[in-house]
């Protein structure tokens, strides 16, 4: 058991994921890109849900803001990839700061209500502001980042544009995960956990609970914006759906499906849900119905999600061995 624990699983998964373009199928690369980006999106939500104990029903708002900011800058204003990506991240974080100021006031219930309300406003702006966001039609034909420089690197020369973008996404998402891991393991992350466990007690020992909740909200929003910006380019277009409440529901269910009690749980949930979506949407158009049913089963039967259930199984095995 101790040996298994010492294996650097995150690095192994990363290396395995990097071989996907050489499997040859355009479809696999497509799926892997989708999963990588959404895994980051779900992990950003988990900073709120799992670590701070705040339920956001409007996390897609920041995903959408990041996606729109990056796409508008690149398409309309011809800004290069890296500055546009950073602008998307910063703008999502800034919007999270403004909305968060109101959301973290009073109780957690207000937080949940207000995140949904503000997300609807973001969606309405995306939907109605025709001159900038393209309105209902969204923005199509967002340019791919120029990745010709990758041809210089040996082995990458003969890859398709989609495969190259996937590798870029993989590296960026990997870095973002490393940053998130650093954040949750830092003293800051520990304080967030303390607030989740008992906000009143945290306040007694001198923690400014609201300020930390707000900080957590901003960081989560910024990472969601980063994921959104990458997703918009991957999708070659941004649409109001990105900020829609059903997107918020999807990411929430990813986090719970994987298990919001662990750092990697939401990423696992994202992977499973994307694959499930691929399978199920070819049979039925009623995806929300499936999502809702999954959520109810999880709440009643597996509140710890996939990772939680696995951990419980491992613990039981261990107890049996020790007994």
């Amino acid at each position, binding site marked *: 058991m101790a040996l298994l624990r010492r294996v650097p699983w995150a690095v192994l998964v990363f290396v395995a994921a990097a071989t996907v373009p050489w499997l040859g199928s355009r479809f696999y690369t497509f799926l892997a890109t989708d999963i990588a980006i959404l895994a980051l999106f779900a992990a950003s939500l988990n900073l709120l849900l799992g670590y701070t104990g705040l*339920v956001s029903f409007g996390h897609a708002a920041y995903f959408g803001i990041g996606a729109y900011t990056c796409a508008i800058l690149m398409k309309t204003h011809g800004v290069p990839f890296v500055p546009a990506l950073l602008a998307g991240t910063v703008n999502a974080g800034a919007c999270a700061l403004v909305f968060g100021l*109101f959301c973290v006031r009073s109780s957690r219930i207000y937080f*949940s*209500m207000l995140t949904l309300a503000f997300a*609807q406003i973001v969606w309405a702006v995306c939907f109605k502001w025709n001159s900038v966001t393209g309105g209902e039609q969204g923005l199509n034909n967002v340019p791919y980042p120029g990745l010709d420089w990758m041809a210089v690197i040996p082995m990458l020369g003969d890859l398709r544009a989609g495969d190259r973008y996937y590798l870029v996404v993989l590296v960026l998402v990997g870095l973002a995960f490393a940053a998130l891991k650093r954040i949750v393991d830092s003293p800051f992350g520990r304080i967030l956990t303390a607030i989740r466990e008992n906000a009143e007690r945290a306040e007694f020992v001198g923690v400014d609970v609201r300020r930390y909740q707000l900080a957590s909200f901003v960081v989560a929003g910024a990472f969601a914006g980063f994921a959104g910006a990458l997703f918009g380019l991957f999708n070659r277009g941004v649409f109001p759906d990105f900020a829609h409440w059903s997107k918020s529901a999807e990411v929430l269910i990813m986090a719970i499906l994987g298990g919001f009690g662990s750092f990697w749980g939401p990423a696992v949930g994202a992977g499973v849900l994307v694959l499930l979506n691929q399978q199920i949407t070819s049979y039925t158009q009623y995806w929300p119905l499936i999502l809702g049913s999954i*959520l*109810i089963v999880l*709440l009643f039967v597996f509140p710890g999600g996939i990772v939680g259930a696995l951990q419980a199984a491992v613990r039981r095995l261990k107890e049996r061995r020790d007994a």
Partner: protein
Amino acid sequence: MLTPSFLLAQFQSGLTAAMFLFIVASGLSLIFGVLRVLNFAHGSFYMLGAYMAWQVTQWLGAASVSFWIAVPVAAATVAILGGVIERLLLRHLYGREELYQLLFTYALVLILGDAARILWGTQQLAVPRPPLLAGSFDVMGIVVPHYNLFIIVLGPLVALGCWLLLSRTGTGRMIRAAAWDREMLSALGADVGRLYTLMFMAGSFLAGLGGALVTPVRSITPGMDVDIIVECFIVVVIGGLGSLWGTFLGAIIFGQVLAFGILILPGFSLFAVFVLMAFVLVVRPAGLLGRPVKR
């Protein structure tokens, strides 16, 4: 443009919208006040009320009374559905963290939304105004439909009814006691479980009633559940979650700001409501008439 008759017309439409909103939001507020559960599916119940009203009027045909049968039938159906959901599922989550209750009602939003899509399709549906109230008054040069006036009168009656029920009856006393201290009431021998089911049914009834009543003036569409729940949230945030009169006040303010916000921000009057909500949150975080929630 700012003629008295224009202002009166805006006031009238704002008040009508406010009373529709109050009827729905009061159910949300009452359920929260007693069960301490924020029901995200409240908007879905509203939507089901609307679809049920349409369905019943379809079954009854063009009879002039069909609307007056459809409204109570729709509301009662939604109330029964609410009771079943509370009894079979929600009940088992009371002992868990509030997170699970929130997520459960959220899952209902997804399921009921698709269920409505499966049963009634995605096209817009409409119910004609009941013949009895199809006419309109002419007041100071503006047209006030009879139906709007009916809603404007009905809203305060619902508020008064709820208030009398809560403050003047034995059941109301029990409900207030349950809101205060569930365990103590149960220790005193009251059937708190039954009380919770009744309360959830009453709240769902109000959602269904609001949905059924709104059908003659708004078309029935699949997205109406989320639209109304966001509006209800804003109303209870402004007025104070769990407070009946706070909800009433919040609804009136919402309606008027929406109606007159058009003068300031044409096409984006919803933003005016958000600005107001933000302001209330800064000045009185628990809402205008709300008690701070202990957590």
